[in-house]
């Protein structure tokens, strides 16, 4: 069940991967080709315990070494993400 849920999150992040990298690219003036969404890491994608219905994903910039957090409101019924936000975390 847990694995199924995790896979569901991975799938939706894959669907929105382009939006996620574009968001970072525009906000921080970096190239999308340098950005890697850590989809395959167990903790790379998760539902926040701090904020309800918020899906978080970690993104690494291979060029400058920064790691970003992109969060979005997750509508489980419609399987959609909205209200994207991003920050540098490391």
């Amino acid at each position, binding site marked *: 069940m847990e694995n199924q849920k995790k896979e569901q999150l991975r799938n939706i992040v894959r669907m929105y991967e382009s939006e996620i990298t574009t968001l970072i690219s525009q906000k921080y003036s970096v190239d999308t080709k340098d950005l890697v969404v850590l989809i395959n890491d167990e903790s790379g994608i998760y539902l926040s315990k701090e904020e309800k219905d918020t899906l978080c994903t*970690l993104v690494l910039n291979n060029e400058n070494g920064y790691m970003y957090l992109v969060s979005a409101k997750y509508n489980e019924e419609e399987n959609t993400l909205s209200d994207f936000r991003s*920050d*540098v975390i490391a």
Partner: protein
Amino acid sequence: MREEGFSFEQDLAVDDGVHIEMPKTEIIQNDAYVSTYDKALDARWKESESSGITAPNWTLAPISIDAPQPEVDSVLSSPELVAHTEQLPLTNEIPPPLVGGEGVGVVPENIQEIEKFTEEQVATATLEVENFVSSGANEVALAEEAIALPDSDIQEVRERTGILGKLEQIRNQASVLLVKLRDKTTEIVGREIAALTTKPQKKFDHEKENEYERIKGFIRNYERENVAPVIEEAKRMRNKILEERGLLQMSQEDYQTYFAPKDFEVGAELNQGNVGDCYAVAALHALSCSPNYEIICRSSMKKLPDGSWEVKIPLLSENGDVINITQEELGPQKNAQFLKVKEGDIMPDLRYSLKSLGGKEGIRVLEAAFIKKKFGSVDRLAAEGGWGSEVLESLGGDNFKKYSINSNKYNADRKTHEHPGLVSLPADEMAFLDHVLENFDPEVFIATAATRFMDTKTLSGQVLEGIGVYKGKDTMQVFVPGHAYSISGVDKKNRVIKLANPWDTTKSIELTFDQFKGTFGGLDAVRIDNAKLLSNMSNIAKSGA
């Protein structure tokens, strides 16, 4: 045509770029002492109406004076003055208003020229008025002598005509007006110079662009989109990723026991002990203030069952050397130089033993590992003297990128080393320093700073004799010369740097950017490269599998 948003009642744009603010009530048009200058300018404005510039609408200030108008006018309508005003080119390009306003677009040479010119004209006018008064008085005296009247009669005539009184009045009033003119010029020039010195001149487009970048950076740094708990959660998840990849060899429990500071803001509680490796202690303290400290320690260090430690240096690196540190190596060492006098010293070395820094075991291991890596053994005596960046680079390897600025320089003429402080850096290096400080992020940067060396010339007036310390610039705090301090954080909003002395890192020292630049001589910083870090760790995991 008047430019939108530009008021001639407030501003007098004289030439290409010169922008002098002159309150209208202070301008005395058509008056004897300033009329020529004003008229000439007025004429120039009127001439240029065809090019879209209107003459200024100055309000006249009424003034009454018995001054000898023609004489003074002749001085002020000198060919030099007229020629000068005619040479001033007019422009309808009004500099765009920027934050701060004053000083924008002012050319220093023009300010100096105006100042000099005004001084010369005022001096000439003063002299001419004096000559006129003296000459008048002489003529009166000669006339009185020629008519050969008794003194009492002459006195009576003088009183009736008031001729000498009038001459004195002319001199006084002329003097008052010239002083006013000089004061006004000094005030305007002073204001413009002050604006220039507080704001570097930049081309307008660049200024706008920089302003945009600054605001963008501000938004990035201060107005985080995600709330703090969500960001903290993300950082924990980042650590979990490293753990999941099997890259953290030390348990959380061991980290808490051997490394974790009581107060994260303060970082590790350290004191240097009796070895002169302040640079290493400062670097280790700066490292302990980094949010990456836990990851760095847990991924690169391990305590073995026999009590010894394995440390991989560079930390976090794939190809690091494994350094073993035993409990004996952490203990005090006999000082081989005990009671010996070092070359150049007067006093013998009175330290019987050399002790490691005071603090938790883990960070003492890091100090020992750095020394062993560099000197082949934990030779504390050999480790005396060095640079913070050397330690950080040695510990961090290619996961760290170095940022180093040093103001110390060698004067070939005097054949001496000079230590003028960071405040003396050339413009490009100063811009770089400001960039590092203004964008200092403890999540990314680890930094130390070195105070200026004892130099009686550059530290003149600051050294407190007999104590071996000097007073920081514009602060009552004192600093040890030639000593490394750690940077534990930067308050970018208030432009304040938080530092700690390795002698006791629990006490925070706060300096403004300016105080810091005047007090310190060098900055050594490294930036953590997360991509390389993860890549290296990933490779380590693969090779270990």
